[in-house]
């Protein structure tokens, strides 16, 4: 023993599972395509509930100095100011409220003036916990960089996977990533959850996690391709997925446990962000198994690795 007495861990997972993932590949792949299309439709029709970051305007989080926030009274007071659409919702505790003022016509100064009016109207009964005012110039920039960030990430990841594996892997990964981003965005659109900068950060992290997952499966597939040159491709893909299943499940469970802790205890400010991550982890795991692998099957991959055209695999490590 060293530091602690020897004890084995509980091997959660039955090994030698041969869950027939690939048998359902057409069904699941088709289902995924349907979900992607649905998401596109939802986004096109319902649009996003953009936060202040992308839409401009002002966001003020207030807390009643005593008692709970009287939202109807606030609404009356603020609507009388004539600042356009004002949304007020409860946020976190009953004493907290979130006031959203839409972007005022005109330039940056109008946004500031509107924010001042709202603060004055609310008076001393409410303490400002947080204020965010984004003018038209910055909001349009953030919109642009948000989209570019997601696209650039997908491209960068695809390039790296192509570099390390064959092009078919890269194709599979890209479709899986597109699926993850689309479906997560679709959920946000469907439930009109606030879509702001932190949502984009969550999307980018989901990309990272999903590809992390896909690469682990791809790595095993590559290894098996070399080991079992004669095995039929669908069977080999199945084997690879089954072999990595224990790792996939365990890492997924740990990540979800950690994210759940963040979701329930991390405070209201990052709740949207954590929800996106939670959803993304589940979707990301799904896509690695049911999208990336089937695409490999559809595209076919060469089995003859005897020529030295493969990327050199570092054989071992020096300690």
């Amino acid at each position: 023993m060293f530091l602690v007495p020897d004890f084995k861990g509980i091997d959660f997972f039955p090994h030698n599972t041969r869950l027939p993932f690939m048998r359902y590949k057409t069904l699941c792949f088709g289902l995924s395509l349907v979900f992607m299309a649905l998401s596109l439709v939802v986004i096109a029709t319902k649009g996003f509930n953009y936060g202040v970051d992308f839409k401009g305007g002002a966001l003020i989080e207030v807390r009643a100095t005593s008692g709970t926030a009287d939202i109807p009274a606030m609404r009356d007071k603020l609507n009388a100011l004539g600042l356009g659409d004002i949304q007020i919702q409860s946020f976190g505790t009953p004493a907290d409220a979130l006031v959203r003022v839409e972007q005022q016509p005109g330039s940056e100064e109008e946004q500031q003036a509107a924010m001042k009016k709202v603060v004055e109207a609310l008076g001393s009964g409410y303490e400002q916990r947080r204020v965010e005012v984004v003018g038209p110039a910055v909001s349009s920039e953030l919109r642009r960089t948000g989209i570019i960030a997601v696209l650039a990430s997908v491209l960068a990841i695809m390039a790296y996977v192509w570099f390390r594996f064959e092009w078919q892997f890269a194709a599979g990964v890209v479709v899986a990533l597109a699926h993850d981003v689309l479906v997560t965005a679709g959920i946000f659109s469907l439930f009109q959850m606030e879509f702001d900068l932190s949502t984009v950060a969550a999307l980018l992290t989901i990309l990272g996690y999903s590809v992390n997952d896909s690469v682990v499966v791809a790595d095993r597939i590559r290894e098996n391709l070399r080991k079992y040159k004669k095995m039929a491709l669908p069977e080999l893909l199945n084997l690879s997925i089954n072999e990595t299943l224990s790792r996939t499940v365990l890492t997924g469970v740990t990540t979800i446990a950690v994210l759940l802790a963040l979701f329930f205890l991390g405070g209201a400010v990052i709740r949207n962000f954590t929800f996106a991550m939670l959803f993304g982890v589940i979707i990301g795991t799904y896509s690695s198994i049911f999208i990336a692998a089937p695409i490999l099957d559809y595209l076919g991959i060469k089995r003859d690795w005897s020529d030295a055209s493969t990327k050199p695999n570092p054989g071992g490590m020096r300690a």
Partner: protein
Amino acid sequence: MLHFDRWKIISIIGTCLLGLLIALPNFFSKETLAGWPDYLPKRQMPLGLDLQGGAHLLYAMDTAELKKDWLLSLKDDARKQLRDAKIGFSAAGVQGDAAQVRLVKPEDSAKALVELKKLIQPVGNAILGTSGFNVAVAEGTEPGTFTLKPTDQGVQERVQSAITAAIDTIGRRVNGLGVSEATVVQQGRDRILIQYPGLAEAKDIQRLKDLVGKTAKLTFHEVHPSTTVADAKSSRIPLGYKIAQSAEKADEPGSERDYLINESVIVSGEDLVDAQPSFDQQTNAPIISFRFNQSGAVKFGDYTSKHIGEPFAAVLDDKVVTAPRIISAIRDGSGQITGNFTVESANELALQLRSGSLPAKLTIVEERSVGPSLGADSIASGRTAGLIGLAATAILTVLAYGTFGVYAVIGLLVHGIMVAALMTLVGTTLTLPGIAGFVLTIAMAVDANVLIYERMREELRAGKTPIAAIDSGFNRAFVTIVDSQLTTLAAAIIMFWLGSGPIRGFAVTLSLGILTSVFAAVTITRLLVSMWLKDAKPRSRTLNVPV
């Protein structure tokens, strides 16, 4: 692969201890830290505004105004140049984005061109090299006319120096407020970011905005001696003059007093050497008394001596504050400005004048302010979530992998400490998304260990000897770990590059966390397993690997 030289073990442990030492200050309050001996590191990670509360104000400079001011002064320079060269001109004005002059005698064109070209200056400086010129002088469409047009590089250079000057000025103003931990930096081409941590009340933030938002451009202009405002409005504004509104609020709206003033500036706030709030000796109203520097005093003296009996206007930010008549020549460069001042506004204005005026108007394009109560709440929830996340991960890992799981958890702790140490060293700001990112890297660190241990188990099941299985576990998993973590790193780098503020904090924590998690899994865990091996091998013939 599983053999660690003594010196390697020492250096690994040493690195961990060093990391602990660097990260330690973050867990204590500033007061406790002050009591520590000096040889211990005391630096803490800077907290983002969303954790400590404060104001984040992003200002954009009005580059159109800058350009207009430049054109006006170009026009004046052109006139002076031609006058000194005794070349007559009939008109000089600003049209669109160029200054124009019209010569009396078109035959003088060649000579005029030479003179006007003397106004061109290269862009850049002797050290870094020059790249083009700031103004382009060209003949106009009609013979005998010339245009002086700023080039793009010229405008860019002008904007850049204006921003640098503005940052200086704002720095002085903000420091004049008292406690200063504010940072004022440039963002992009024409924006300035002010971050003022710890700013508590909403009214304090408003004070800051008022202080920074006022350009405080003070200029003195001639008031047109003959034409009244009413005449100018009904017929035609004389060339080179403009109508300016009074800063005083009139009794009835619509009847504000207007003034017809010369566009050219007699003397401006740039030549002010001091400005102090004071009280009028007769009325006791708050006033500002000021003093010009040598060149300002000369300009002021010259003008006042030539225009005794006429009014002249003191214009503050495009509004006429006062327009007294010149009683006598003022040669000592001192004077007073009366106006509708309160004691506070006189104080504020004096501070602004002393700090210097801003080159152009600044508008807030983005504001994110967090009150201290929310900041404290965020830290508390972040800490709770982080600890619970860490605990949950530790329990799951130990349950799943036994003794080796314990080693993995030790690796996790090292990972956490190293991330904190790196962030303290680099000085990256910790934000709430950053805490979320850190919590995420804990899960990813586990992933690396899972890969290693699952492979070990697989090899054991396949019948490999324990040592071979352990070795193979680390070997085969390493490539996968690197591949998968690098792709997440790519996403994090892109986030950093394109993001700002809290997103950047998240990206940095994520990136650093990925690096340290790989270190922890590959080095620390491997070290502990190798030590287990060393301990176990002599004892038994067939090893029971506790994984």
